[in-house]
């Protein structure tokens, strides 16, 4: 329906609220517009009048859109709320946060005690490069998922799939590095080196490298689980909005770009 299409595009362009709230608000507006139009029609109003009255009552003005932006715009509160993932997931999130905290504290102590960071081997550098790549990617995804919806692609969940890959790579590289280092200790012992010195030096570095890899794997996996939860919520909200809009805007929207409102957040007229 062209009149609702314009109203929803205007709302989408002016809403500026992070996903998935934006899709949910648009879905609510679209659904209400359609139902109100139907109610007016049942009461005997003509198509044009029913449409006009529905838009007058529920078609959000720029002032209302600005108020909605303010209402949903608290980034930190929104971030915490979304990380919590709703009431049902709060316990799970608290346990995850506790486990991550323990892992970070314990792993950090282990790595520092082993001296792996003080004298990094090529293996340590490789693990740190992988971790840096993961951190950079996570920062970009957090920005897109929580603050700048226009940076999101059509499949937010798929865009996260390399994170578990990076986590596995961290563990693999650190594991290989540890094995190689441990093997060098065995060689040195066979050649008659000081066992106690080697144990305190090379072997503790090998263990430290392994702990570092484990720690980074935990962090990357934890970030992936949290971000994936949000990405799933966004995909669900988008799918529901797409379905509702297809019903409201008609068959034209099902195959065309009209229904992909969420894919053009800043340019409703695209």
């Amino acid at each position: 329906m062209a009149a609702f299409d314009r109203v929803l595009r205007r709302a989408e362009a002016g809403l500026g609220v992070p996903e998935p709230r934006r899709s949910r608000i648009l879905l609510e507006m679209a659904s209400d517009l359609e139902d109100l139009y139907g109610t007016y029609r049942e009461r005997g109003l003509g198509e044009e009048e029913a449409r006009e009255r529905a838009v007058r009552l529920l078609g959000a003005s720029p002032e209302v859109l600005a108020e909605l932006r303010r209402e949903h715009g608290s980034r930190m509160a929104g971030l915490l709320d979304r990380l919590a993932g709703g009431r049902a997931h709060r316990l799970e999130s608290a346990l995850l946060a506790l486990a991550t905290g323990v892992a970070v504290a314990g792993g950090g102590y282990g790595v520092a005690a082993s001296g792996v960071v003080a004298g990094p081997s090529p293996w340590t550098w490789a693990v740190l490069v992988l971790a840096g790549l993961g951190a950079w990617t996570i920062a970009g995804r957090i920005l897109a998922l929580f603050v700048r919806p226009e940076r999101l692609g059509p499949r937010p969940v798929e865009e996260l799939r390399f994170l578990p890959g990076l986590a596995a790579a961290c563990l693999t590289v650190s594991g290989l590095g540890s094995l190689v280092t441990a093997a060098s200790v065995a060689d040195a012992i066979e050649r008659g080196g000081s066992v106690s010195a080697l144990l305190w030096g090379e072997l503790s570095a090998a263990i430290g490298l392994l702990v570092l890899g484990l720690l980074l794997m935990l962090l990357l996996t934890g970030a992936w689980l949290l971000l994936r939860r949000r990405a799933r919520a966004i995909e669900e909200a988008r799918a529901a909005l797409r379905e509702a809009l297809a019903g409201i805007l008609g068959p034209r929207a099902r195959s065309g770009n009209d229904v992909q409102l969420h894919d053009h957040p800043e340019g409703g007229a695209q």
Partner: protein
Amino acid sequence: MSLDTQSVGRRINELLVLSCVREEAKHGYQIALDVEEETGGAFELQHGTLYPILHRLEKEGLIEGEWTEEGRRRKEYRLTDAGRRRLGEEAGSLSAALDRLLDILEEVRRGGVRPRPAEG
């Protein structure tokens, strides 16, 4: 109890919305429609004014929004216990303040507009 005149519009809007869902859960469009009809057209939540009110009340825990699946996804709102308490309090304080305002309006209506006393 005094009433902050700057907030009176917002409080009336919130009271009207809370009042609409006091007996049963309703969708947003039903609330907008009911506000208009239950007040005989005296109040109308135009241009989507309803949504910021609903979302603010939901954030404050005074109403609870729930998505339903009946052919299409719709969001409906119900009054929470906190909302019921707030409705009672607001009804009391607003009604006392509006009674005073009505007294003034009635006095003005009965007396008409008094002519300004002649100067000098």
